[in-house]
């Protein structure tokens, strides 16, 4: 099958071109042996089907980062390159183009973001550019789909001029002369969007912008997820699914080993979707009706923040603070991802350059950044006792993140490199790419989480049946009751936390804890061992030694913070 590579600088709308070419069916894969991920899909090319690969964004083929190294390797495996070029910044984009034209591979150019050239006062002579480069150049607006048909028609005409290999100075000079010839710039006034953009990287206005954006995100996430829960999922489970289970229950004898695994315990003769703890009750309700809504709404908002171009601004704004934690501003991005799920967040630490930064970021995420699933459970369970307790839990975790980061920065050897990033202009997010990304992430959550949750429910019921938890509870009782002030049954929840934290928190529900105990329990659960999936990626990303270090820090920090909270509350 013909392999078509989409290549270009970061922030040129490559993903939007990709989703226009391929439609919604796309797969995210990791490049063999690495965690650099890329997206691939298929498109019709004449009578044949071709594979389309969205190569990670690259500024140059002389690699300056791991993503660029991978891009170079992928280039060697492709058949045709669609070079996506930002029409509003030819000067920089054409450098990569000239490098591509030196290679022995046919190239066609999508001159994307074409619509913006007009109000930016940029005139580009496409015909002349085509002549100078010797390959087809098609103006496109991927967000609206303009020019995509012409681009597809031009793919068979892709050409390889095989320019002589040259030095970077000569290449920049060549770029200069081409731009000089094909581009005219008219003077014009700043638009409101640019003024807004500049304001968001200044200290005071930027800080205000960040607060507004983050507060708005929080409100939108809660609005969407609670809407889904209250008006769609709860009615479905309570009105349609519960009656089915109540019919099934007597058929299975109403109690006993099998009944407990499949349906769980009836609470007062009724199904309680949180406490019954069977496969068909809590096993389905927790992931689908308590957690999924938060996952969907969180990833929707995050996707919009990514595609409007806000995240890099947040990185610039946070750079100062993050440096105190031994990180640079960019580490805020995996950290925010961690609020969705710790697994992609820890994979996302790959964008950081040094091992030290990756270690600190990953450790902080797995200890102090609760995933959407856990947050949903905290809001659901602790929230019943009053909003102040929810604030206590999240406030403690935030403090732990800051203090632990500060400590790690002063104890982990090495230094952290500095920030150097491009800040794309604000754009209206293209709905297609936002929805495509939302779908891929949600699907990823479902296939990853549901089997583990169902497995966890079975394991817990079996172990419970054989009294294993009682044994562990008795053994660890001094620590749990003495230090943390929790009943010894809470041990079960902490052990289960290793499988799924959301499920584990649910297990605190039937223990009749005081509000203070519930806060301690939630914080300890959040900070203690991450769930098994996070554990696996931690191991893969950090290696055994660093992972054990991270785990040691976790245990000490969780017990210390839990103990202190117990004394205060």
């Amino acid at each position, binding site marked *: 099958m013909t392999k078509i590579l989409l290549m270009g600088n970061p922030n040129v709308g490559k993903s939007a071109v990709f989703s226009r070419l391929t439609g919604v069916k796309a797969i995210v894969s990791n490049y063999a042996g690495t965690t650099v991920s890329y997206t691939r899909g298929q498109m019709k090319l004449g009578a044949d089907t071709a594979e389309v690969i969205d190569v990670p964004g690259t*500024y*140059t083929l*002389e690699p*300056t980062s791991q993503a660029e190294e991978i891009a170079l390797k992928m280039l060697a495996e492709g058949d045709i390159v669609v070079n996506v070029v930002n029409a*509003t*910044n030819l*000067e*920089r984009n054409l*450098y990569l183009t000239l490098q591509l034209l030196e290679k022995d591979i046919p190239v066609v150019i999508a001159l994307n973001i074409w619509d913006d050239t007009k109000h*930016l006062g940029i005139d580009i002579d496409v015909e002349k550019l085509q002549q100078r480069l010797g390959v087809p150049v098609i103006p496109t607006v991927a967000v609206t789909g303009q020019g995509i048909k012409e681009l597809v028609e031009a793919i068979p005409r892709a050409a390889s001029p095989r320019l002589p290999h040259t030095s*970077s100075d000569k290449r*920049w000079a060549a770029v200069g002369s081409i731009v000089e010839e094909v581009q005219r710039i008219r003077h014009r006034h700043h638009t409101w969007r640019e003024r807004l*953009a*500049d304001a968001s*990287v*200044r*200290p005071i206005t*930027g800080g205000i912008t960040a607060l507004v954006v983050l507060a708005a995100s929080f409100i939108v996430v809660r609005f969407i997820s609670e809407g889904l829960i209250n008006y769609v999922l709860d009615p479905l489970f309570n009105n349609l699914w519960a009656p089915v289970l109540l019919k099934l229950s007597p058929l299975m004898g109403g109690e006993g080993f099998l009944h407990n695994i499949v349906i769980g315990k009836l609470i007062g003769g009724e199904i309680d979707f949180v406490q019954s703890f069977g496969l068909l009750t809590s096993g389905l309700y927790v992931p689908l009706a308590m957690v999924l809504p938060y996952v969907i709404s969180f990833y929707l908002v995050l996707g919009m923040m990514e595609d409007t171009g806000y995240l*890099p601004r947040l*990185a*610039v*704004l946070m*750079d*100062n603070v993050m440096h105190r934690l031994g990180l*640079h*501003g960019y580490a805020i991005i995996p950290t925010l991802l961690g609020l969705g799920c710790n697994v992609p967040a820890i994979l996302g630490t790959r964008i950081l350059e040094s091992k030290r930064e990756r270690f600190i970021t990953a450790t902080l995420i797995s200890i102090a950044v609760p995933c959407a699933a856990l947050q949903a459970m905290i809001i659901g369970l602790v929230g019943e006792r009053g909003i102040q307790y929810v604030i206590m839990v999240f406030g403690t975790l935030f403090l732990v993140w800051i203090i632990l980061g500060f400590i790690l920065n002063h104890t982990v050897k090495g230094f952290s*490199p*500095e*920030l*150097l*990033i*491009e*800040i*794309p*202009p604000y754009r209206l997010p293209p709905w297609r790419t936002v929805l495509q990304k939302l779908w891929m992430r949600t699907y990823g959550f479902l296939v990853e989480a549901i089997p583990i949750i169902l497995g966890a429910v079975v394991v817990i019921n079996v172990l419970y049946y054989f009294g294993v938890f009682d044994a562990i509870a008795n053994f660890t009782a001094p620590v749990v009751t003495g230090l943390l002030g929790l009943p010894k049954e809470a041990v079960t929840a902490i052990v289960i936390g290793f499988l799924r934290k959301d499920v584990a928190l649910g297990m605190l529900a039937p223990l009749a804890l005081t509000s203070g105990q519930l806060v301690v329990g939630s914080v300890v659960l959040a900070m203690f061992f991450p769930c098994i999936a996070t554990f696996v990626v931690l191991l893969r990303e950090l290696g055994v030694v660093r992972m054990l270090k991270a785990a040691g820090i976790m245990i000490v920090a969780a017990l210390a913070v839990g103990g202190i909270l117990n004394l205060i509350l």
Partner: protein
Amino acid sequence: MDKELTTLVQMERGQRGTVLQLKGGRGLVNRLNALGILPGKKITKVSAMLMRGPVTIEVDRAQIAIGFGMAKKIIVKAD
């Protein structure tokens, strides 16, 4: 030092200038070049964060945020 020669850090917000020299190792120079920052380029300083925070500049209509330490190494001839 010539009065007009300055670094990105010392420039005023909104001031324009031309990049003269990148005083760094090969690695840093390569990374800056890849982002379109090279001698002879016209730049405008957009903003700087407080307390040795990153400096944001505009070059060829693209905005780049540069850490304080790196920004000190970029020598500019102010307009």
